[in-house]
């Protein structure tokens, strides 16, 4: 097809990464990860309702170092997507569009996500 051979302007190669763009793609990336995590969550519930053997294998996976790492990553994805999601909802309501506000809210979102992830793992795990 002709569209596959035409020259395109460079974008990712030339645009300097900024907090705004990084947080935006991170919101999308965490969203996709969370959608994929629905499959793991389903596996856990189905095993929970099933035979002891099936639950034991799922419990062993999630308490292993790799499973715990996945859980930790999932926790951060959840909290980041949640906090940045609230930031998006504020924008939908028309709040917080000034450039200084955007950068401040971005840093707050990142900070809270990291703090919440650390806190939850210290307390609940």
């Amino acid at each position: 097809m002709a569209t596959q051979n035409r020259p395109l302007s460079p974008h990712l190669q030339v645009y300097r990464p900024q907090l705004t763009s990084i947080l935006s793609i991170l919101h999308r990336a965490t969203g996709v990860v969370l959608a994929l995590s629905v499959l793991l969550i389903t596996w856990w519930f189905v095993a929970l309702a099933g035979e002891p053997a099936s639950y034991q294998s799922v419990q062993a996976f999630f308490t292993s170092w790799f499973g715990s790492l996945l859980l930790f990553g999932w926790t951060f994805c959840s909290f980041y997507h949640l906090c940045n999601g609230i930031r998006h909802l504020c924008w939908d309501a028309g709040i917080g569009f000034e450039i200084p506000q955007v950068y401040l809210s971005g840093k707050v979102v990142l900070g809270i996500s990291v703090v919440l992830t650390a806190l939850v793992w210290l307390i609940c795990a």
Partner: protein
Amino acid sequence: MKNNLRHPLKNVKGEGASGDAVNHWWLQRLTALALVPLTLWFVLSIIHQVSQEQSAVMQWVSRPWVTVALVLYLATMYLHAQLGVQVVIEDYISSESRRLITILLCKAILLIATVAAVLSVLRIAL
């Protein structure tokens, strides 16, 4: 008043450049709002429950309000996730047929997973 100018069949088929976009937008925001408390609760709960024994976890799932919250979380998560995934796919796949098939496939997988999870919760709790 303006709505009468549109043929009813066009509304049903979701025709027009944006299709069903306004409904999509609203449902995405409403489920997002509902998911704020639900996700906070779910993440905190799961991290604790994941290391517990099966009988203890099943007892936790059977607690009346836990069952309600779990079903609400799973259903709302399904709605929000498939809308979000749809938006991502729409951005990256340009072929109309491949785009539609991918979106439907993702929605189907998420639906099956959510139904399986909800039914498991109900099987434990009821």
